[in-house]
Each structure stands twice: as structure tokens, then as C-alpha cells.
């Protein structure tokens, strides 16, 4: 997550202190991402607690030592529910982001390599699809194929490959005029070989960066769909489902069932973006001054 401008004038550079801040930010982000991944992977097998365990005598308890996040309207522990929700949301997010990246990279590389009318046609399609607001397109796909894990993952993937395709295509176009590509071509390499052996490895860092940044987007998208009742089935409680399910308690004045699932979306998003920003500065220092949202 960078918006430090590299183009700041010398007379107001904060050299060391800014670098120190950046290092701290990267470490905090890395720790948070690690904590998220560990919690999601380890808590379910190691902690022998049932997230679905209903205890009506303990319903809607405010945060306390026994229940750090409080309990929901059925007396279920919210911390546990949030970890399980994050697991579901993250899983859908990662699957959708991977699918979108593979699709976008394939489209971007083929458009950039084939060029000519294929390139123009493909980019026209990308422009057309991106004219439909993402969430609306997602809602349409989910409405037509009924809510469920796969329709949601597919709808997120189908609405998010466009930016990757654009980035990869631009990268391929700029790589095509490099001497090593000329050398490969004059060495008799086929177009297919140039694309797979020489261009694809060169665009992979960019594509991987786009994939990492897409995970929070996909998570956000999934929780929005789930919140609208067009996402995952309620037994697979994702963070969006948790927020949706807490609406009744919120209107009765209990804030904790709403607040904590939201924080579970914000914190990983910021951490992932912080790490990805540092990574991008490393692979592409020239673009440090660009905003990343």
C-alpha cells in the first residue's frame, strides 16, 4: 500500500525516517498476513471447539474474557465464527483470484503475441465487459445460476480478469521489442515458443502481483454478494453472511456481531496491500509514486 511519492523534492525529503516507517509497515503487514494464514489453517484442526455450538443461555453476550468478540444471537462464540468466516471468504477469494489471473494472463499474452485484429478484437471485448459494473454483473450471474459457492467464485473470476489482461498485454507489448525476443525469433523460435518460453516468464511477476492484490478484492466481492443474500449458502458462514445475519441484533442495539466480521475483512485487506506494495516497489521501483488502491 504505497502512495509515497518518489518525486518529492530534495528539500523536503524525510530520508531515513520515511524508510524506517516503510520497514515497520512491511513488518506489521507481514506479521498480520502470517497471523491470518496461520489462524485460518491451524485453528479449525487444532482447536476442538464447535463454531456452530448453540448456547441459548449465553446469547448476545458483549465482549468478555470468555468470549473476546462476544456471542451472537444463538450464543455462538463470535471469535470462532469470524475465524471460520475468514477461512471461507479467503478460500473463495483465493480460488476466484487464481482463476481470474489465469484467464487474464492467457488473454493478455495471446492478445499481445498475436497482435493485429485478434488484439483489437480481444481488447474491445475487455472494454465491453468492463462497461458493466462489476457487482452488477456478479449479481446477474449469481441470480441466473442461483447462489452457491461455484456461481459466486465464477462470477468473481469473470468480473476480475479484465485488469490483469490489460496489465499483461501492455507488458507483453513493451517486451516484444526487446533484443532477446528478436534473438529468439531470428534463432527460429516459433511464435508459440516465444510466447511460452520467453514472454510468459517475464510477465509472471506482474501477473502474480495482480493476483495477490486481487485476493482482497475477491473477498470484498464475495462478502458483498453474501451480504445481499446472493452469495454463499448460510451454512457456509462467510464474513458477508455473518454481517448479514447480525442485522437483527444490530437493530436491537448489539454492535459486536456486526463490528468484528467487518474488521476481519479490513485488516487482511490492508496487510495484503501493504505487503504487495513493498513487493511492487522492489520489482518495479520506477512506479513507486503511483497510487495503489
Amino acid at each position, binding site marked *: 500500500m504505497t502512495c509515497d511519492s518518489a*518525486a518529492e523534492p530534495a528539500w523536503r525529503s524525510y530520508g531515513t525516517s520515511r524508510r524506517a516507517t516503510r520497514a515497520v509497515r512491511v513488518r506489521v503487514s507481514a506479521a498480520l498476513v502470517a497471523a491470518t494464514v496461520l489462524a485460518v489453517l491451524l485453528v479449525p484442526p487444532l482447536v476442538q471447539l464447535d463454531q456452530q455450538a448453540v448456547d441459548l443461555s449465553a446469547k448476545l453476550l458483549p465482549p468478555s474474557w470468555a468470549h473476546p468478540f462476544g456471542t451472537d444471537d444463538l450464543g455462538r462464540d463470535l471469535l470462532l465464527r469470524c475465524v471460520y468466516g475468514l477461512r471461507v471468504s479467503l478460500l473463495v477469494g483465493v480460488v476466484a483470484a487464481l482463476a481470474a489471473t489465469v484467464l487474464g494472463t492467457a488473454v493478455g499474452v495471446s492478445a499481445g503475441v498475436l497482435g493485429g485484429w485478434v488484439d483489437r478484437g480481444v481488447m474491445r471485448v475487455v472494454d465491453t465487459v468492463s462497461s458493466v*459494473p462489476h457487482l452488477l454483473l456478479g*449479481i446477474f450471474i449469481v441470480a*441466473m445460476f442461483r447462489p452457491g459457492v461455484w456461481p459466486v467464485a465464477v462470477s468473481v473470476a469473470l468480473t476480475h480478469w479484465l485488469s490483469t489482461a490489460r496489465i499483461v498485454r501492455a507488458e507483453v507489448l513493451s517486451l516484444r521489442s526487446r533484443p532477446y525476443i528478436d534473438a529468439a525469433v531470428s534463432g527460429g523460435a516459433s511464435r508459440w515458443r516465444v510466447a511460452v518460453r520467453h514472454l510468459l516468464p517475464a510477465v509472471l511477476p506482474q501477473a502474480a502481483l495482480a493476483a495477490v492484490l486481487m485476493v482482497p478484492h475477491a473477498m470484498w466481492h464475495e462478502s458483498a454478494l453474501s*451480504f445481499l*443474500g446472493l452469495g454463499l449458502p448460510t451454512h457456509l458462514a462467510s464474513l458477508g453472511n455473518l*454481517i448479514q445475519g447480525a442485522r437483527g441484533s*444490530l437493530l436491537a442495539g448489539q454492535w459486536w456481531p456486526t463490528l468484528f466480521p467487518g474488521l476481519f475483512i479490513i485488516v487482511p485487506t490492508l496487510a495484503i*496491500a501493504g505487503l504487495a506494495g513493498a513487493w511492487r516497489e522492489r520489482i518495479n521501483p520506477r512506479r513507486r509514486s503511483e497510487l495503489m*488502491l
Partner: protein
Amino acid sequence: MARLTGRRLLFAVPVLLVVTFGVFATAAASPFDPVKAYAGTAALGADAGTLARLRENMGVDQPFASRWWHWLTAALTGDLGQSSVLRQPVAQVIGERLVWSSLLCAVAFAVAVLTGTVLGVLAARRPGSTLDRLVTSLAYSLEAAPVFWLALLAIWLFALQLDLLPAGGLTDTASEQVTPGQVASHLVLPAGVLAVSQLPWFTLYVRQGVGDALAEDPVRGARARGLSETTVLFGHALRSGLLPVLTLIGSRVPELITGALLVESVFSWPGIAAATVEAATAVDFPLLAALSTLATAAVLVGNLLADLLYGLFDPRVKFSDM
């Protein structure tokens, strides 16, 4: 300028054709059966002959391409079909609700642009200062926060705890008429939340643009001439720094629509976006098709506006080059 507008409108026609075609193709590929949806539970006991007759009456026995063509030609005359969930013609649904959605989006966007400019300039004034860090981290956190979650927390705080503002709807439940005062008080929360969701993006870009402009020669010259800080900031830095931001405004329409979808459904605001969610939940295909087309058209208009603003504010750009 007229030529650019004309060319963009010409480009919009194939885009809209492809989008509507895609909408019909998706519906044809989906397991959804409009006849069963129309007949409801009656379809369970109906014999095959009745269902086939119903299918023929509704015109869904034809291939989707011909249904698309039929819909398209009817749409050009203003007939968008019948909404099954709201039991109204689709055109009437849109006509009644468009005003409320536009009002919400316009107010929210204006608030976001004004607040974002002020915050962005304040942050850019001293990069690395406490204020700058505060504004920047707040902006990133708000950007990461789901807008529906912000909306719910706003309801909890302002409607339930402080009891300042109504929690949703367009008017009080007891009132029978829509009065401007009631609408205004019901507008504050949804428009505020939508504005907050659009704010971070705008603030960060203004901060970036103004920060870069502050390092440029004209600003240094203005400082050297001894102009006041306010004149330098607002007269020089903001003017050139805001330029790239203004052109991005038009391209924010998709995010605005996305935000409106969520905000309207949380606050039961009777706009188009809330109708979209209702239509999707009930698989109301005619309404969904019309609203997707409408949203796409709004995005295309936004893109056109972005290009026009770019040309208007930057005298170096000639419309004939675009």
C-alpha cells in the same frame, strides 16, 4: 468536441448491443426457467400441455437470439416488458426510482469531491506530517472497509445510539406524503455513507496530484514571488494538481453504482439499485436485463464525461486527437 461525442455515442451502440446479447445468452445458458417461475407452485400440478401453451404465450419457446431481437425492438419503443416481482411495467419501475437514485448519487458524489479536495490539499501541504499520515491511513482503512458494513455501523451510531437521524426509507412510516424536509433528513445517512465510501479514492488522488504540483517550477516561482500560502495552494498547486483527478471522476461511475447498490439496500432507499437486488433475489429477468443495460449506459456516459472534462480543463489536449 461534437465529433468526439458523436464518435463515442457510435461506439456505445455496439457495446450496448453486445451487453444485452450477453445478458440474454447467459439467461439461456442458466438453469432458470421463466415459465416455472411465472407459474410458481401451480407449475407442479400443471400438465405438459398447459406448460407448453404458457411457454408459447410468453414467447420463451423461441431461441434466445430471436427473443433478444424481440426485446431490443420493443425496448426502442419504450416497452421493456413486465417486472414479475414488482408487478409493474419495467419502464415505470425505472421511471419512478431513477429520481431517487440520481439524487442519492449526486449528493454523495458532490460531498465526496468537496471533502476529498479539502482533505487532499491539507495532507499534501506537509507530506509526512501527522495530519498527512492521519488522512492517508484513514483513507486506506476506509477504502478497505466494506460499504455495507459502514452503513450498518452508521445506522447503529446515528439512528440507534444518538437517535439523530432516521435509519432508513424515504419518509417516516406514518407520513403519507413525500415532503422535501423528510426526504432531506432521510437522505443524510445514506448519502453520507456513500460519500465516505467514495472519499478515500478522491482524497488520495488529490493528495498525490497536489503533492506533485507543489514540487513543480510554477509553484516554486509563485513562492519566490512571495505569494501567500493560500494563493499558492489553491491558486497554483490545486489547479494543476486537480487536473488529472477531474478526468478520473467520470470513470468512477462503476464504483458509484456498486456503492449505491449496497447503500440503497441497507437503507431501504427506494432507488434503482435496491430494485436490482430485489430483481436478482426473485430472478426477475426483464427487470434485471433493463437495469444491466441502464447501468452500462451510465458507465459509458461517465467515460464520455471524463474525456470531455479532460479536453475542457487541459488546453493542450485537442479533441481531434482523441
